[in-house]
């Protein structure tokens, strides 16, 4: 069952087109990363899905209902970018309030805060919290009432690596229970292992919507081969392979993914001249830049 469907969604602010014909969907239990530079339209897209701003054109279906409708809001949780709370309230008071707004028992507040690692700080005012702690309060409120769709806007900014892992572990649990999760990020490196699919926005347009493996294939970026030649043989190896000699022993080659095996065969054919070979696939940042900078169709 689709939890979220967008088709041909367009939104314009004055002269800038924030979203252009964006369309994709999220199924139950699916985790999708929404990537893009600042101003690519990620936050606007989330606000359209939440019903906070209306799209100029296109259709959005949230849990089978209109965005912003009561049915949609009942089942959707949101974690805004740079989430903020009233500094005079304690973490427990703030979460109790959100629980009441969702019609849940406010006594769950402490358990929710404990789940995100804030048990000790629950009775302190949020004004004394660090950015990472506020971010975790934001996550705690997004867990209220078993949401069926989660929209997380750069949820891990401000988190240290350990809390980041805890954070993703919680998301894994939610997805396993069937929640659909859309979370935005600046960096592909960060979301790589945590997502089923990747959607990339560039200047309001969707330039990619696929699994990481498929995006890697589509991008067809060159593979780097680093060959370590035996001492004194670097020039010979470079000449033989038409490669570039970097230093006394290393020769670098670049080839398409399709040519990779043939090139490795050539290298192996040099026998004793070669000491070692390293294969470097295109980095996640390279793939992201490839799509994000408009190289994609």
């Amino acid at each position: 069952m689709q939890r979220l469907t967008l088709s041909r969604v367009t939104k314009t602010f004055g002269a800038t087109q924030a979203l252009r014909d964006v369309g994709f969907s999220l199924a139950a239990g699916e985790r999708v990363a929404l990537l893009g530079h600042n101003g690519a339209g990620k936050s606007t897209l989330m606000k359209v899905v939440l019903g906070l701003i209306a799209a100029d054109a296109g259709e959005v279906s949230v849990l089978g209902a209109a965005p912003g409708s009561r049915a949609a809001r009942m089942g959707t949780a949101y974690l805004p970018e740079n989430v903020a709370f009233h500094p005079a309230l304690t973490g427990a008071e703030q979460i109790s309030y959100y629980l009441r707004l969702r019609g849940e028992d406010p006594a769950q507040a402490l358990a929710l805060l404990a789940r995100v690692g804030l048990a000790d700080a629950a009775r302190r005012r949020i004004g004394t919290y660090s950015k990472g702690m506020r971010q975790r309060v934001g996550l705690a409120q997004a867990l209220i009432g078993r949401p069926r769709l989660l929209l997380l806007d750069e949820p891990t900014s401000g988190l240290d690596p350990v809390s980041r892992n805890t954070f993703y572990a919680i998301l894994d649990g939610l997805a396993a229970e069937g929640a659909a999760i859309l979370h935005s990020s600046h960096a592909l490196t960060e979301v790589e292992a945590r997502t089923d699919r990747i959607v990339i926005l560039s200047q309001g347009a969707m330039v990619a919507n696929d699994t990481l493996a498929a995006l890697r294939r589509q991008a067809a970026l060159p593979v780097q081969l680093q060959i370590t030649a035996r001492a004194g043989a670097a020039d010979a190896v470079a000449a033989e392979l038409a490669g570039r000699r970097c230093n006394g022993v290393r020769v670098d080659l670049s080839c398409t993914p399709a040519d990779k095996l043939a090139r490795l065969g050539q290298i192996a054919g040099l026998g004793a001249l070669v000491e070692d070979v390293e294969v470097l696939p295109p980095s996640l940042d390279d793939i992201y830049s490839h799509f994000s900078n408009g190289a994609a169709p």
Partner: protein
Amino acid sequence: MKRILATTATEFRIALRNRWVAIAIAVMALFALVLAAAGSGATGTLGADRLSVTVASLTSLAVYLVPLLALLMSFDAVAGEVERGTLALVLTYPVSRAALLAGKFVAHLAILALAVGVGYGIAALAALLSEAQAVAGLAALWRLYWSSLVLGASFLGIGYAISAWARRPGAAAGLVVGLWLALIVLYDLGLLAALVADGGGLFTRHVFPWLLAGNPADAFRLFNLAASGAGAAAAGVAGATAALPAAQALVSLALWPFAAFALALAAFRRLLP
């Protein structure tokens, strides 16, 4: 309803922490004490019990202070949440904007009820302690109390409307102070000037009463002075009680909170977080 009260409880707690509750109570208590001390000089010569005299003084006090407190509490209600960045999140919860605003309204009105109650209570106590027949004025005091809250409710609504419209706390603060000055201070001065210029003509007989009824602060003052028969002793525009019967003033006063809340809700609904 539970969602409204959830917001009320949270807003009340924030006001307690921000010392707003304490400040409102202190301001009202201080002014009531000053009034009680100043009023202790004038005794029976007016033919009224001391509490009734106190009520007349409190009316003139309330007409300035209650709107000011209400505006100061309300100007930040929406703009503050926009600036802190807390509004977008709460608007994604399954709660209507009307319920959010109503929750804040109930909390702020409760603080006002507390502060005004303490202030008037102190003034009443001072009058009752010094003169036994002052109990005769209790009815007038009660009338002043609930009409003060209706006045406060009107200005809370106006404050929310400004807060939602201005979007920034700084701008909203400036606007509410300006509005207070215009509606409470300059409005009456303007009317007086117009009355003098008109010299009992068409304006005085047909337009002036409506302008009085249209301003909640004037409606409040006229209602209380007319109902207690103290109009004759009052000076300035308040002396114009004859221009407007108490019932009409009351209708205007009673309609204002609804009109102001509707205005606030309309402004809040237009707000894009």
